[in-house]
């Protein structure tokens, strides 16, 4: 009797060692299916990719990724991951939700996550939706734009015209209008979308055309919530550098001279002598502040005013960590201002651009949003 118990325990121990060894040989495998923007979009997809890379380094998981050549391939890419018995499959973007939901119902021993949407209406035990309160972060960057615009006109370039991006739009608009009201000026928020199909996430040419058009109408700060299409907006502001008084349309004039004390880089002084004001982009999802630097010197004027941070990287990392630690739960995980899931970026590239007074007011607004005293619209 005793012997058999000892033997049993020994066998169990052996099995434990064996399974540990097996675990070491077969680390957790995570599959990432990107959307049309591609993993180097400097934005949403890239942020996910970076979160996964961090998980690979710190948690020792293996990351496999899949960039669909066209939307019709997403389904089979996700299925392939599931069929190979991956531990976790993450669909990046709402467009991957139907494929993930389908696969989650079929492969019940594989765990799934969708970023920006809720798979299976949150009822699947093996699938989780990672969603964000983008309107809250967008409100804050909108407030920055409204406070610092020198023309009283700010722009919004959205990617695909869908409710998800309307959250960015509405938050930004509300924030900018609140700042305009606080300054006592009659401001304007221009709103454009790149398109109505997933191709809108990766059309920098059209993004650039829209930025050009908004700038023509007097916008000096443009918020790009458009995935890789935002690179076109960035390209525009870096080429344009400044708005001249002579280029302003009828009815728009310079109402302030913010940024006049910010040291400028040489090419700016050369191109923007006289009565001019700098033009800016506001980045999205990842911290894109560095993209506005033209002279590899963060101290001089940079053309990205700030970035609306949507910590997709955090969300990705935490869901991978949950799987690794066996704490994965199906349903919905929501990220907002209260748990630092969204916010705005402040670093060496833009600390000279945003005055302390504005930062103080942002702090107050943030508290009001978290406490519920201030309601930010999330839909049109």
């Amino acid at each position, binding site marked *: 009797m005793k012997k058999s118990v000892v033997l049993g325990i020994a066998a169990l121990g052996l099995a434990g060692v064996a399974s540990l060894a097996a675990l070491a040989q077969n680390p957790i495998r995570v599959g990432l299916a990107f959307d*049309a*923007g*591609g*993993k*180097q*979009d400097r934005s949403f997809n890239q942020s996910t990719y970076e979160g996964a890379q961090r998980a690979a380094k710190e948690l020792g998981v293996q990351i496999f990724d899949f*960039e669909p*050549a066209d939307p019709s391939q997403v389904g089979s890419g996700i299925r392939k991951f599931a069929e190979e018995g991956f531990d976790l499959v993450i669909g990046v973007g709402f467009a991957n939700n139907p494929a993930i939901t389908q696969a989650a119902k079929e492969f019940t021993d594989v765990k799934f996550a969708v970023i920006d949407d809720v798979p299976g209406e949150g009822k699947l035990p093996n699938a989780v939706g990672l969603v964000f309160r983008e309107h809250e972060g967008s409100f804050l960057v909108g407030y920055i734009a409204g406070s610092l615009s020198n023309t009283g006109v700010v722009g919004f370039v959205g990617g695909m015209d869908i409710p998800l991006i309307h959250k960015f739009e509405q938050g930004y608009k509300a924030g900018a209008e609140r700042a305009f009201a606080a300054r006592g000026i009659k401001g304007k928020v*221009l*709103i*454009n*979308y*790149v398109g*109505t199909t997933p*191709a809108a996430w*990766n*059309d*920098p*040419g*059209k993004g*650039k*055309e*829209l930025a*050009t*058009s908004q700038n*023509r*109408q*007097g916008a000096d700060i443009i918020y790009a919530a458009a995935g*890789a299409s935002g*690179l*076109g907006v960035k*390209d525009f502001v870096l*080429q344009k550098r400044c708005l*001249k008084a*002579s*280029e302003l*349309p*009828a*009815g728009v004039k310079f109402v302030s001279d913010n940024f006049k004390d910010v040291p400028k880089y040489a090419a700016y002084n050369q191109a923007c002598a006289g009565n001019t004001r700098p033009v800016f982009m506001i980045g999205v999802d990842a911290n894109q502040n560095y993209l506005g630097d033209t*002279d*590899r010197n963060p101290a001089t004027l940079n053309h990205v005013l700030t970035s609306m941070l949507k910590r997709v990287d955090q969300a990705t990392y935490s869901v991978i960590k949950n799987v690794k630690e066996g704490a994965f739960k199906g349903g919905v995980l929501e990220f907002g201002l209260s748990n630092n899931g969204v916010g705005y970026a402040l670093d060496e590239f833009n600390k000279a651009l945003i005055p302390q007074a504005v930062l103080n007011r942002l702090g107050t607004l943030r508290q009001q949003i978290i406490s519920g005293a201030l309601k930010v619209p999330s839909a049109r």
Partner: protein
Amino acid sequence: MKRLSPFMIGFLVVAAIAVVVLGMRVESAILIALFFSTLRQTTPLLLTALGGMFSERSGVVNIALEGMILFGAAAAAISVERLEAPMLAADPLARSAWIPWVGVLVGMLMGGLVATVYAIAVIRYRAEQIVTGTAINLLAAGAPPVLMQALYNTTTNSKEVENRLINIPIAGESISPLVFLAFLLVPLCWWVMFKTPWGLRLRAVGEQPEAADTMGINVYRMRYTAVILSGLLAGLAGAYLSVGFLNQFVKNMSAGQGFIALAALIFGKWHPLGVLGATLLFGFFRALAIQLQGGEVMPSVVVEAIPYVLTILVLAGFIGRSRPPAAVGKPYEK
């Protein structure tokens, strides 16, 4: 050859009126933006359609223009990025005036190379032109992503280049030198096509290759030259998209412009001036659709669809008649 037909002029007038009416309803700022945007949207269409004109006038349908644009765009962006990499490693702020032009040249040559492959298949081996062209278009959708995966570890976008063509500033906008080049090519193409012996031979080969052959014209050589020329121009259009207007290559960035150029070629009746009118019209509607995005005037998708509806009407023979060169699409056998 008939001059610009009344319907062409009619539509240009309608377009002009639309601009004026819109101009009164919206601000003049938008109007200026619309004007420059039209130029930018027209440029790649015009370059490609002019190229396609040579090919089709020689009797070879070139449905592969779309693919040639993509190959040209990818080659231009990647060559600029590769050329500037060592320079930027030494000094991140270093700029070079010649690197982007080398990129443009590489883009053109790449377009020409792809056109050569196409020409060998359809002229020498008399392959079905539509099928071969489609094959090249499919290749152009797949090959650049494979190359980008190897170079940049992503299939969608190439690395953004620092050295791009220096734009010429006009009225608060800046316009790529390739825009000017495209419009200057119109009279040049007209002259080549209608005022030179080579142009006469080209048209003869496309209308009556047997007769041209009897007269001692080398039909094959004329067709090779014309198809390669179309590839060079489509490659130039691609280079405009990637390093002229933007600073990177994006997968499928031509977004069907090769096909639109082909439609403009038919709309413009295989004539340089007609092609200019048609591409301007198409470019105008593309630009208008962009300007109307998000506005309340008219849904932009409707505006975007207008050129395609027009093309269908023209092809169906409802507006004017468009007659292709007699021998287009038919391989020539001696």
